[in-house]
């Protein structure tokens, strides 16, 4: 595995990551979400062609803890072969916001505590590494003792100690032939001193990179910024940095601005579940629109300049000569959904509770988010990341999404 920093803009950096499998891609990069190895709603055979950058996925080892799936993945020879995703990067992240949240307030020497869909469970080190080794991920996060920022000092210190010990234990249990693929966890939650201590300890280990944990748990945004800064200051520049728990566009920008290279995000899927299509603009050159004016998607080339929350009553659309919206979710978007289907069709699918609606929305939302990450990288290469971030967060007020379910009322 090789990671090389190619360009910088402030603390943000563009890197090129070359995995042992030969797969190469640019960072900062989005890791797409999977469950039990497969995308949640996107047909797996469509994943390769979804977007030029749609090559990297996250998965959680927690799904593979028990038989029969534990035995099945071992027999298949890893998660790539199991899910037929050879040619993809599969990154094992212990915590995932689709069902394996940390339950770290309790102390335990036995292992890390997670809230899963089948209740709270403790995952021990041997078991965790057994699953990691069976899955053969391209990168994997060490077992974290992750706690939220409000825990007492003593518990916080304990989490730093556990995490460091467990990192060593995980490293001792990793299969040698899988090479150096570990992302050592850095915790520290509510204390900047503890955060620095955790980072210092992880920095001395023989790892491929680091995974910053304890975020996305209701912490203050400014505090989060300090924690990212303090941790990253202690980490070597030439190793990968991943963060878990952060996924919205603002969180991504904040993380990238601090020096993060990899993020797994459920943001596209969260929008899909709410019947929302991602429509925010991606190009700084688009002039901001007056928020008072009713904004319509314009036929600009490849740029979404806004959204329309105008509610079109279907009856008026048919009897009153009103507009039926036969435009795609985002005009000019090159995703599968936008090239083939219209808002009115997707609205019909949603109102009829058809699962195809979720599939089409998720394809678009994932594509749009991958374009967002690409725009971030372009801005870093042009040394304009700060401007890009300022521009993006200021136009946020005009709305980020198109509510497909509300646009037509039958």
């Amino acid at each position, binding site marked *: 595995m090789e990671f090389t920093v190619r360009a910088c803009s402030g603390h943000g950096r563009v890197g090129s990551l070359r995995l042992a499998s030969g797969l190469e891609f640019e960072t900062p990069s989005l890791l797409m979400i999977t469950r039990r190895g497969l995308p949640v709603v996107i047909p797996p055979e469509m994943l390769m062609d979804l977007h030029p950058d749609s090559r990297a996925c996250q998965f959680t080892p927690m799904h593979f803890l028990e038989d029969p799936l534990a035995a099945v993945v071992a027999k298949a020879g890893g998660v790539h072969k199991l899910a*037929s995703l050879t040619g993809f990067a599969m990154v094992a992240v212990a915590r995932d916001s689709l069902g394996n949240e940390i339950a770290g307030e309790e102390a335990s020497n036995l292992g890390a505590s997670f809230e899963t869909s089948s209740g709270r469970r403790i995952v021990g080190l041997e078991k965790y590494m057994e699953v990691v080794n069976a899955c053969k991920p391209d990168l994997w996060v060490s077992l974290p003792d992750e706690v939220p920022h409000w825990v007492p000092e003593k518990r916080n210190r304990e989490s730093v100690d556990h995490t460091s010990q467990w990192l060593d234990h995980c490293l001792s249990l990793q299969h040698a032939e899988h090479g150096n693929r570990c992302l050592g966890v850095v915790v520290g939650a509510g204390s900047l001193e503890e955060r620095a201590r955790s980072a210092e300890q992880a920095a001395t280990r023989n790892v491929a990179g680091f995974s910053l944990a304890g975020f996305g748990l209701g912490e203050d945004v400014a505090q989060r910024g300090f924690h990212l800064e303090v941790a990253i200051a202690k980490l070597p520049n030439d190793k990968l940095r991943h963060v878990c728990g952060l996924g919205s566009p603002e969180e991504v920008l904040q993380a990238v601005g601090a020096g993060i290279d990899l993020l797994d995000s459920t943001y596209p899927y969260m929008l899909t579940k709410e019947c929302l299509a991602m429509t925010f603009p991606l190009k700084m050159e688009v002039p901001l629109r007056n928020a008072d004016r009713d904004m319509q998607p314009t036929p600009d080339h490849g740029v979404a300049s806004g959204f329309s929350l105008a509610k079109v009553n*279907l009856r008026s659309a048919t009897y009153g000569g009103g507009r039926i919206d036969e435009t795609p979710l985002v005009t000019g978007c090159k995703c599968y959904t936008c090239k083939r289907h219209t808002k009115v069709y997707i609205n019909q*699918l949603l109102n009829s509770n058809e699962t195809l609606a979720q599939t089409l929305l998720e394809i678009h939302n994932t594509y749009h988010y991958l374009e967002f990450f690409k725009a971030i990288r372009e801005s870093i290469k042009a040394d304009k990341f700060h401007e890009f971030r300022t521009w993006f967060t200021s136009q946020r007020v005009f709305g980020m999404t198109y509510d497909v379910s509300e646009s037509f009322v*039958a």
Partner: protein
Amino acid sequence: MLGISPSMALRFEVLARHNRARASRLTLPHYEALTPLFMPVGTQGTIKGLTNDQLEDLDCQIILGNTYHLALRPGADLLDTIGGLHKFMNWPRALLTDSGGFQMVSLLHLADITEEGVTFQSPVDGKPMLLTPEDSIQIQNKIGADIIMALDDVVKTTTTGPRVEEAMYRTLRWIDRCIAAHSRPHEQNLFGIVQGGLDPQLRDICLEGLVARNLPGYAIGGLAGGEGKDAFWRVVAQCTAGLPEDKPRYVMGIGFPLDIVVCTALGADMYDCVYPTRTARFGSALVSEGVLRLTHAAMATDYRPLDSSCTCMVCKRYTRAYLHTLVTKEAMGSQLVSYHNISHMMQLSRNLHSSILEGRFPEFVQSFLQKQFPKGDVPDWVCNAMDVAGIDISMCRIPQSA
């Protein structure tokens, strides 16, 4: 070779035969299809979760849409304004819509049939509403499918008595109203539906009446509703014998592969059913041997693909064991099984067409039955039907007393 009628928008060419079975080319306004073929059911303009690309990859030729659901949402007028269901869905191949009548009767509370039409309570506001043959055809004209179905008076196959006769005669009266109301005979093919329950005399009268109307194609309706298999195949045999050679024959609501093979042997060309996708949602996969219950504990250690002779994306990539872990836990599980099941039905369609075309239909039937009944316990009704079809399946059958 073909009957040409002024009210046709299709061409049907029988390319090869084996006794009653035929392999044909059905040229429709939007697509050139090969029969025998299975048509997946799309209800609201989509087959459960599958994208258009996937449907094309699976070789789906004609998809069925339900007029009742489409009329409710998004509505016939919207579809008309947009330019039809093809354009709305962006589906480049063929579509068929049903009349809406069957769904109403089966889905709606207090639906009733009178000479005027089907009366029912609006599902939106409970007000009494009426669907006449004219309404059904007008709605279907707006939806714009390649094939549209006449509104028929359909009764349950288990119904007996004068109601069956009443329904058959009403169906004949209604076909004339449908023909009169059809405003796009050169773009859409109106199929009549043969009714008459399980009564051969009633079926004969209906057949005669519909054939005399010189329609582009015919469906055999009123089956797949709980009648015994023996009665079922006899009705199909009688109807295919009574329908014109040079027009397509569509047996409605048939989806079990065994039923499709038998009906094909007896001379039918088109089939539709929700079965393949519905059974996928319960974790059942269609395979050469029959039905594979993926939820079964034994699947957890079965590392074979669903069907060793299937070349679909699912069978190329995933094992039964993996699918077993997915089906009850992830929506993706039943998505993948749905995909495979549709593939299975389309492969069956291709096998039927090519085996008849290539003069090896009996061998195909024999091989099919041997896989489904490895112990030789082919049901009597299948044997009787194959007798009438003139297909020797004696080698598939081991007498049970032996």
